[in-house]
């Protein structure tokens, strides 16, 4: 009886083994082989990165530190309660706001003791209001234990490194796509990749007051997706991250290569987001983050998505630590033609 799952025909393996056995080898062959290997590594470039002087480009969603988005926090204490290290300090009080029926929580103090934190990320997972995010920042050391406790102003600062959520896959549920698009559009304006509800409100109010005073035409300075009412409308367009250029300001941004249509600074003065410099995006093709070209590596995919963000906002892509346009040039050329 044969065992059923045994490979019975191992002639191929035997043949290889026999060939290896027959191959002529010098005595002490292994010594020469190993000396060859070490000689090759000795002559090749070392892989060491001299950290403070040199840096590697980290993946853009690296889990470095936990950053706080203060205006989203409702002092629900879920993160603090679920923290296994008890390293989150939250203090708050209740305030009766005019126009609100119930008193609302106001945050007084939010601090994370990074001397205790073990980076499990439970607080990020558990936060129901997306107030906590993983940030790729990591240089937060201190010479003292007290210095490792970072207060909310520092945690807020780290939000600047957080990217918006990645787009969904192309065949996702339409409702999910719509909701995601809303969230995505919300994050695109304001500070890099951060939901800025307050900024949005400020922008709306500024536009209103400007319209009331008759100083400027109502929609001259505020692009369409900074107005809360119009954000869902632009998201209804099939291609995500490619809303219809509704206003002059937005239409001009991707084509900033032509200086004639670039909006002047005075036109954009009421925009609360940091005024984007006139971006020299050249003639790069429109990048659809949901539909990237096939056959490119994960790093290039990430960089393309990053470039898509900048393209959408009409800003110049960063040149540090890598020149996005330069490193992506072969792929962009391929997309173009």
């Amino acid at each position, binding site marked *: 009886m044969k065992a059923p799952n045994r490979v019975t025909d191992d002639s191929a393996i035997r043949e290889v083994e026999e060939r290896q056995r027959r191959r002529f080898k010098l005595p002490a062959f292994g*010594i020469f082989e*190993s*000396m060859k*290997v*070490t*000689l090759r*590594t*000795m*002559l*090749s470039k*070392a*892989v*060491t990165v*001299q950290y403070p002087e040199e840096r590697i480009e980290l993946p853009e969603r690296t889990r470095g530190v936990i950053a706080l988005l203060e205006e989203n926090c409702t002092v629900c204490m879920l993160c603090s309660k679920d923290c296994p290290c008890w390293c989150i300090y939250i203090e708050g009080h209740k305030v009766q706001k005019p126009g609100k029926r119930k008193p609302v929580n106001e945050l007084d103090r939010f601090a994370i003791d990074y001397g205790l934190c073990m980076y499990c990320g439970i607080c990020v997972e558990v936060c129901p209001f997306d107030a906590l995010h993983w940030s790729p920042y990591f240089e937060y050391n201190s010479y003292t234990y007290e210095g490792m406790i970072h207060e909310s102003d520092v945690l807020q600062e780290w939000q600047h490194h957080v990217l918006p959520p990645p787009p969904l896959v192309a065949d996702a549920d339409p409702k999910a796509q719509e909701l995601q698009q809303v969230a995505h559009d919300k994050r695109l304006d304001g500070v890099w990749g951060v939901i800025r509800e307050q900024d949005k409100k400020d922008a709306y109010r500024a536009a209103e007051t400007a319209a009331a005073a008759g100083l400027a035409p109502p929609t001259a300075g505020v692009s369409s997706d900074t107005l809360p009412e119009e954000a869902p409308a632009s998201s209804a367009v099939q291609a995500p991250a490619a809303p219809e250029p509704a206003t002059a300001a937005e239409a001009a941004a991707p084509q900033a290569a032509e200086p004639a249509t670039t909006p002047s600074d005075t036109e954009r003065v009421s925009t609360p987001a940091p005024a984007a410099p006139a971006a020299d995006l050249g003639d790069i093709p429109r990048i659809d983050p949901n539909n990237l070209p096939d056959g490119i590596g994960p790093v290039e995919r990430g960089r393309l998505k990053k470039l898509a963000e900048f393209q959408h906002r009409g800003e110049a892509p960063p040149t540090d630590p890598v020149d996005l346009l330069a490193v992506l040039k072969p792929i962009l050329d391929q997309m173009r033609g």
Partner: protein
Amino acid sequence: MSESLLLLPVRGVVVFLVALLSQIPLLYGLLKISAHQMDRLGPMYPGRFHGIGQPIAEFVKWIQKEDIVPRTADAPVFRLAPLVALLPAFGVFAVIPVAPGLVGAESELALLFVLALSAVGAIAVVMAAYASQSKFTLVGGLRAVGQIIAYELPLVLGAISIAMLAGTLSLTEIVEAQAIPYALWPFPFGAIAFLLFVLSCFAEVLWPPFDMPVAESEIIAGPYTEYSGMRFIFFYMSEFAHVIALSAVGTLLFLGGWRGPILPPVIWFVLKVSAFVVFFIWARFTLPRLREDQLQKFAWKLLIPLGLVNVLGIAVFKVLT
């Protein structure tokens, strides 16, 4: 005669300084080459340029450490052992000719002197091992002595082969005997002698793949386990001096010493010795450690018979030609 007597202290100091200072490039090369073999960079900060000051920093670190003598140790012998290791290793430098006429002490029996002094290291290891009164040092000491005795023979047989071919024990004359093109002894006698010499050099200085006496995963640091501070570094200095001295002797015996075109003799000599040392470091950080019995078998069953046959063959060859 009186002039050379007056110059004697000067010569001694110069030889000592050469022996001492040549350790700096060796240690630096050791750190850097081993690092690059592992795709690392090695020291980069001391001395501002690629960690060039690291050997000095290491030395300063070691002399700052406390000199501990175990309570149960045989204190006088324990204290003496590092010096017994260091001084013969430095003494070898006295008879090594660097260029024609440029030698600490010209001797007719220089090769014999070198081989005799390099065997004294075994005594220092035994002193250190027994005086420490520790199991690890004892095991390490026994291994070291067994190894040095076993590999002294192939080393001597390799060197004697060359002495027979050249017909002299003077290192200067051996170099003179190596006709142009450089370093060509009659085949296969020279090649076998070279093999014997190089392999036993590794065992003589207790470097991998023959470092069972200091096998750190089994017996901590072998005979040096109980040492600390300056005395510990003396053993390492003697080891480094041994490496350089044996490389220099190997260069003189097999690579044509200072002979070479265009460049001055001293440069040629330094280049050849450096190549020898780099080979030692390269092999040291590549090859894994042998087992104790494999080491002994390799010496007694292969190297020594090979050496004897080689010497016999050379004798026949010399008679016939």
